[in-house]
C-alpha cells in the first residue's frame, strides 16, 4: 500500500479548495448566511496553513468549532431529520475537515463527501443548467482523485483525463438507468424543512399560485376512461378557503384540527350510485405533497387506497398523515352536486359573508350599487362576470398590488390570473351577502396517449369560487373562465398572450424573434429533460423495455447485461490499448522465428545471449545442421547491423533466411 502519511502537494490542496467553492456554489440557496462566513474563514485559514503562516487548529479549537456550528444549525432549523439541515450539516463537516488534512485518507474522505453533497444538490434543484453545473464540479472533484495518484499532472491534463473517464462511463451509466430494476422507496423520507410542501399550500395570497405555474413538476396522474373526462368538469378540488383578512385567504380552521375533529365524529360517507351518468370512477397517483388533503372531482368518495379517509363539512377529503411519498387511491365522484346541500346555519352564513370592515371599501360600495341595478343574485353574478369579460386581461405577470388588493385589482390594474379573479369575485359576492368561498386545486391536465392516463402538473394549479344560491345549494363559478375561457378549455399556455406563452409567465419577454426562437428551443430541451430524465420511472421503464425487448426471457436479460458491458469495454479499451504492443522489426521477427525453431529441437535461448553465441551452441549440439544454422546466423547479423541496406537486398536476404530456418 502506498504510504498513508505522505506529503500532499500544494496543487492538490488548491484544487481541493476550488472544488469546495464549486460545491458551496451548487448549494447556494440552501446554505444559511452564517455558513458563508464560516466557509470564507476556513478557506482563508487553510490557505494560511499552506503558506505556513498559521498553525493548524488544536483539538480544543476543533471541538469548539464542531459544538458551536452544530448548535447554530439546530437554532436555524430546530430539527435534524429533514433534508436541508442534513445537507448543511454535511457541508459543515466538509468545511471543518478541510482544516485537518494530513493524510491521503483525509483527502479521500473529502472527495467522497464532495460526491455526496453534489448529488444532494439534486434534491433541491433539477434543471438542465443546474445539472450541467453539477457535472462540471464532478469533473473537478474527480481530478482531485487523479492528482492523488499520478505524478506531475497539470490541471489541464487532469481535467481532460477526468472528463474522458466520466465520458467513457456515461454509456454504462445510461444503460444502468434504463435497465436496472427500480425499487420503491425503502422507507418514508422527510421532505425539506422550509419548502415543506409542494404544490398548493394551505393559504393563498397574491403571487402564490403564479409561483406554482412556473413549476413543471407532476402533481398527480389520473387513470380513467378518457371519454369520462370532460374539460369543463376537470376541477380537481383540494382545499376550501373561507377566511379572508383583506389580502390573504385561508381555512377558518387549521387542517390538523379538522382532521382531529372529523376522526372523532366519523362523518358518514354518502353512498353514490354507480349507475348514475354523473358518476365517474378513477384512480389517482398522487406525488408527495407533504400535506394531508387529497384531490378529486367533487363530490368525491375514496373507495380504495386510503385507510381512513376523512371528509370535512366543506367537502374536502383528508388522510390522517402527511403525504410524504407517492400514494395511489381510487375515487368515485358524483359530478352533479356538492354534497352539503342541507343548508347553512346562521353561523355559517355569517362566516361565509364576512369581510374585514376596513379593507377594500370601494369594492364593497360598488358591489352594493351593482346588486341594486341587477335586482337578483343570478343577474348580479352575470353582471360581475361580464364586467370581468369586458375589462380584464389574463396574464401571469400582473402588476404588484398594495394593501387593498381587491380594490386595486378591480378598478386600477385589471390584470391578473386565477387567484386574483377568484379572490375578487368572492369578495364581490360576500359584499352583497351571497355566501361565497375560494377553492384551490388543479384544473385540466394533459392526456398521455401512450400510457393512457391524464397527467396533472403543478402548472395546472388553479383557484375558483363557490357561491351558495338558496335554490341550488353550492355552485361552482370560475371567474377566470369569463376572462380567459381558453385557459379552462385548452390549458394555460393557450390562454396567455403570444409572447408569454412559451415561458409560462416568466417575465415580459423581449420581442426579439431570435431570442424567442432560442427560448422556444430551450423550452423544448427543458421539456425533454423533464419527460425523459426527471419523470423517468418504473412505468416508463417497463413500457420502454417491453417496447424494445418484448417479453423478457432469461437469454434477453443476460444479453441486456452482457452486451452493454462488452460495448463499454470495447469503447474504453480503444482509447487505452490502441497503440498495441510496439511492433517488432523485421530482423527481430526473424530471430524470434529462429528461436522458436531451435527451441523445438531443445536449444533454449537465454536472455542477453548474442546471435552468434546462440547459434554456436546449436551447432555444437547438432553438428550435422551446422551449415544451415551458420548461414542463418551470418545473414541475421548482417540484417541487424546494416540498417541502411537497400530494400531489394533486404528482401532477398529475408527470403533466404526464411528458407534456411524452415529447413533447419
Amino acid at each position: 500500500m502506498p504510504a498513508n502519511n505522505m506529503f500532499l502537494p500544494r496543487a492538490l490542496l488548491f484544487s481541493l479548495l476550488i472544488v469546495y467553492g464549486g460545491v458551496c456554489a451548487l448549494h447556494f440557496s440552501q446554505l444559511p448566511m452564517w455558513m458563508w462566513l464560516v466557509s470564507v474563514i476556513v478557506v482563508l485559514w487553510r490557505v494560511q496553513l499552506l503558506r505556513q503562516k498559521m498553525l493548524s487548529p488544536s483539538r480544543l479549537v476543533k471541538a469548539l468549532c464542531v459544538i458551536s456550528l452544530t448548535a447554530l444549525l439546530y437554532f436555524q432549523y430546530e430539527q435534524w431529520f429533514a433534508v436541508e439541515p442534513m445537507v448543511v450539516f454535511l457541508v459543515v463537516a466538509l468545511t471543518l475537515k478541510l482544516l485537518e488534512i494530513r493524510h491521503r485518507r483525509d483527502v479521500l474522505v473529502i472527495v467522497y463527501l464532495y460526491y455526496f453533497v453534489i448529488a444532494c444538490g439534486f434534491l433541491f434543484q433539477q434543471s438542465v443548467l443546474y445539472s450541467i453545473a453539477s457535472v462540471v464540479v464532478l469533473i473537478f472533484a474527480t481530478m482531485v482523485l487523479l492528482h492523488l495518484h499520478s505524478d506531475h499532472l497539470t490541471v489541464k491534463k487532469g481535467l481532460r483525463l477526468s472528463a474522458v473517464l466520466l465520458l467513457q462511463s456515461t454509456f454504462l451509466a445510461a444503460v444502468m438507468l434504463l435497465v436496472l430494476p427500480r425499487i420503491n422507496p425503502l422507507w418514508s423520507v422527510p421532505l425539506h424543512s422550509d419548502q415543506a410542501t409542494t404544490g398548493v399550500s394551505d393559504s393563498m395570497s397574491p403571487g402564490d399560485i403564479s409561483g406554482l405555474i412556473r413549476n413543471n413538476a407532476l402533481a398527480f396522474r389520473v387513470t380513467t376512461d378518457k371519454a369520462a373526462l370532460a374539460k369543463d368538469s376537470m376541477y380537481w378540488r383540494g382545499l376550501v378557503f373561507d377566511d379572508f383578512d383583506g389580502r390573504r385567504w385561508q381555512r377558518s380552521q387549521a387542517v390538523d384540527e379538522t382532521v382531529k375533529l372529523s376522526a372523532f365524529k366519523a362523518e358518514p360517507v354518502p353512498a353514490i350510485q354507480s349507475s348514475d351518468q354523473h358518476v365517474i370512477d378513477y384512480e389517482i397517483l398522487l406525488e408527495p405533497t407533504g400535506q394531508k388533503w387529497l384531490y378529486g372531482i367533487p363530490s368525491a368518495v375514496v373507495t380504495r387506497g386510503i385507510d381512513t379517509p376523512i371528509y370535512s363539512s366543506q367537502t374536502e377529503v383528508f388522510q390522517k398523515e402527511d403525504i410524504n411519498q407517492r400514494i395511489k387511491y381510487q375515487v368515485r365522484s358524483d359530478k352533479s352536486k356538492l354534497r352539503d346541500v342541507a343548508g347553512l346555519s346562521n353561523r355559517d352564513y355569517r362566516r361565509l359573508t364576512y369581510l374585514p370592515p376596513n379593507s377594500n371599501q370601494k369594492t364593497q360600495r360598488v358591489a352594493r350599487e351593482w346588486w341594486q341595478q341587477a335586482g337578483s343574485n343570478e343577474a348580479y353574478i352575470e353582471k360581475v362576470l361580464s364586467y370581468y369579460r369586458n375589462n380584464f386581461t389574463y396574464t401571469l405577470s400582473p402588476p404588484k398590488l398594495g394593501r387593498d388588493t381587491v380594490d386595486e385589482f378591480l378598478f386600477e390594474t385589471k390584470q391578473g390570473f386565477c387567484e386574483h379573479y377568484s379572490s375578487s369575485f368572492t369578495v364581490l359576492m360576500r359584499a352583497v351577502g351571497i355566501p361565497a368561498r375560494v377553492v384551490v386545486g388543479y384544473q385540466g391536465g394533459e392526456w398521455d396517449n401512450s400510457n393512457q392516463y391524464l397527467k396533472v402538473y403543478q402548472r395546472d394549479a388553479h383557484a375558483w369560487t363557490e357561491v351558495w344560491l338558496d335554490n341550488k345549494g353550492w355552485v361552482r363559478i370560475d371567474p377566470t373562465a369569463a376572462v380567459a375561457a381558453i385557459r379552462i378549455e385548452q390549458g394555460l399556455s393557450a390562454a396567455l398572450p403570444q409572447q408569454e406563452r412559451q415561458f409560462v409567465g416568466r417575465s415580459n419577454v423581449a420581442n426579439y424573434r431570435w431570442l424567442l426562437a432560442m427560448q422556444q428551443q430551450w423550452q423544448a430541451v427543458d421539456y425533454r429533460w423533464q419527460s425523459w430524465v426527471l419523470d423517468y420511472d418504473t412505468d416508463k421503464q417497463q413500457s420502454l423495455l417491453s417496447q424494445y425487448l418484448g417479453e423478457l426471457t432469461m437469454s434477453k436479460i443476460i444479453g441486456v447485461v452482457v452486451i452493454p458491458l462488452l460495448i463499454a469495454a470495447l469503447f474504453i479499451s480503444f482509447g487505452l490499448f490502441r497503440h498495441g504492443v510496439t511492433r517488432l522489426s523485421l530482423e527481430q521477427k526473424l530471430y524470434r522465428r529462429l528461436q522458436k525453431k531451435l527451441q523445438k529441437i531443445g536449444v533454449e535461448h537465454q536472455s542477453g545471449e548474442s546471435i552468434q553465441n546462440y547459434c554456436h551452441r546449436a551447432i555444437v549440439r547438432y553438428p550435422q545442421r551446422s551449415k544451415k544454422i551458420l548461414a542463418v546466423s551470418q545473414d541475421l547479423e548482417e540484417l541487424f547491423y546494416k540498417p541502411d541496406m537497400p530494400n531489394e537486398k533486404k528482401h532477398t536476404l529475408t527470403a533466404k533466411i526464411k528458407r534456411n530456418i524452415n529447413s533447419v
Partner: protein
Amino acid sequence: MQKRHSLSYYQRWLTRRIPPNKKQTLHRKNIFILPSKAGLGFLATLLILWLLGTNYQNNLILVMTFLLLSLMHTCMFYTYAALSGLSVEVLSVEPCFMGEQAQLRCRISSRSGRQHQQVNIGWDGAVVSTVTIDKNEVKIVTLPLLVTHRGWYRADRLRILSTYPLGLLKAWSKIDLDIDILVYPKPISGDLPEPRLRDVSSQDENDPAVIKKSISQKEDISHLREYRVGDSPKHIAWKAYAKGQGLSTKEYDTQQTVKREQWFLWDDFSGLPNEVRLSRLCDCVLQAEQSDMRYGLQLPAVSSTKTKSDVLGSGTEHQQALLRELALFDQPDVTHPSATQSLNKGIS
C-alpha cells in the same frame, strides 16, 4: 516431498500460475485486480447515494450513482493498463552480509506505448520504490531487500502494484524473479586471533599450525622520504615529526618483507555459539584481506559442505571463496526454489 505440502495452497497455485523466471512481462494472466480499500469506501458512499436516490425517487441522484459506479468500471481498464506491458528483469544480485540489505538491480521497461504512472514495486508490506515509466522507457531500479538468514536466501515474490488512476482499484502481480542471494555471516569485529605456534619444526606451508617466524618480525623501513599528499597516515614517521623534522613518509622495502600468513581455525573461537564463530571468522577474513596478508580457513567437515578451498591465498577471489564457504557452512548449496523454501522453514 512431504515438505512440499507445507506450502500453502495459494503459494502452490501462484507457482503454477506465475512460474519463476529472470524476466517477467505483465499481462492478463499474471495481473490480478480487486477494489482497494479506498474503492470499498467509494462503493459504500455509492450505496448511501443509491438509497438516497431511491427513497426520494430522484432520477438525477440515481444517474450520478450509476455514473460513479460505471466510473469504477472504467477505472478497471485504466488500472489494468497501468501494469499491462511492463517487463521486469533482474540484472544482478550481489552477495551480502547478514543484517545488511541485499541490493537487487532490476530493469523495468515497457513496450506498451503507454505511460505507466506511479507503479509501486516492493515486497509484501513494504513499498520500496515508486516509478513512472514513460512510453517505451527503460528504467533501472535498485531494490533493497532485508535478508533474514545465512546461506542461499530465496527472495520473495516481487509485488508490483498500481492504483492508477483514481485509487479505487488495485492491480497487482507477484512475480518470482528467481532470485537467490548468497548471504555471508554478519561480521563481528574483534582482534585477529593470536597465531598459534604449535609445531615450529614443520615446514609444510599448508599445515595450519605453522606460522612463519617473519610474521612477528617488524617490517623493515628502508628509508624516509618527504611527505606527499595522499600518503597513508599510518606510514607517516610521527616520531621524526615530533622531533621537529617535518612530515616524512616511511618507505618499506617490499622486496625484503615476507608476507604475513595465517590460518583461521574453527577452534580459534571455541566456546562461542556456531553462528558467532562464523561471524568472527568472517570478520577475520575481511581484516586479513585488508591488511594484505596470505590467509586461509579451516572449518570442520560437515556433510553438506562439499567444496573447500584449503589453501592460503589473498585477493578478492580468494576472499569470496572463503566467504562463500562461511555462508554455506552447515547450509545446503542449492538454489532450487522448492528445496530452499522447504529447508528454510526447517532451519528457522
